[in-house]
């Protein structure tokens, strides 16, 4: 269900920042939020009907695998190194688990696999619009 909020945020961002009709938008989401891509696209296709600027827009979703760095012991690690921890959090809460709803809560739930600190920095955990294509032009937006 949270996918509807994400879709709404995309629709709102596009309608607030663009004047021309949009043909395609590329959204990047982090792997550990486990958003359901089908529901996300379904929600986007429903919500985009509200505004002519986006009514014909196609949503492309890219899943980004963040890298992690511990600010306590300075080691870097990958998602595979914390996959078991993430699984335990998911099992503990269910589908709408905290990192699904609020990815920025990651350090509250995940500990460094090397030293156990929660002072973890994720590079690439933000949900952002990577690219917007308008009818008649290609525009790259960060």
């Amino acid at each position, binding site marked *: 269900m*949270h996918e509807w*909020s994400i879709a709404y945020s995309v629709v709102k961002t596009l309608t607030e920042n663009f004047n021309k009709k949009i043909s395609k938008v590329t959204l990047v989401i982090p792997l550990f939020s486990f958003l359901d891509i089908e529901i996300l696209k379904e929600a986007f296709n429903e919500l985009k009907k509200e505004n002519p600027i986006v009514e014909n827009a196609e949503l492309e979703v890219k899943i980004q695998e963040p890298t992690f760095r511990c600010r306590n012991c300075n080691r870097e690690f990958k998602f595979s190194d914390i996959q078991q921890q993430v699984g335990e959090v998911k099992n503990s809460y269910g589908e709408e688990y*905290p990192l699904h*709803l609020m990815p*920025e809560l990651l350090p509250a739930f995940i500990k460094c696999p090397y030293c156990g600190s929660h002072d973890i920095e994720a590079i690439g955990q933000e949900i952002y619009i990577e690219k917007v294509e308008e009818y008649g032009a290609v525009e790259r937006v960060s």
Partner: protein
Amino acid sequence: MEPLRELAKEKLKDKKVIAIMSAKGGVGKSVISALISLSLPSDVTLIDLDIHTMAIAKLFGVENVPLEVSKEGIEPVKIRNVNLISLAGIVRDRYVILPGRNQSNVMKELIAYSSIKGKYVVFDLPPGLGDEILVLEELSDFKPIVVTTPSKVSLKVVKYLLDYLNERKKKALVVVNMSYFTCNDQRVNLFGNYNGDVNLPIDPNL
């Protein structure tokens, strides 16, 4: 381009936003946030931005009520006219230890991804002069209510906050909490002496 920020701004647009703040902790911000919310004439959304203590859910006795998520977002817990949004419903009964660099986005996520009902939004802020104020300034034109106790340390710190709010052209209402205690019909000033726009006594039955 930040969908999170755009959605958070959208959620607060057209709302009357009130922020209960103080740079000092333990002055009664959460208690006063609850009282103000309950006293408003219509439905209000009360958002607890104190992400480490989550006191409001405890004050209302709903810290173990699990949340629901709808197409409109994370649904608040309803107590009389108050729709409560708190991290407590999301993390449930456990600590939230969080680096400073994550704080502002956690606050934005809480605002953006929740279903905000009613015309009024009351924010209960944590102590400090940091992200909570900067984020609220980014997202809305809020009315500040500054809470203090009469102690000299608290008054000094509140003066810093009022200086900052004046610089940002925001007029604050000052509430002096725990201004006195009635002991055998005698007024005792346990924490010092000061007069604000509103003065509240110590109430052991709180």
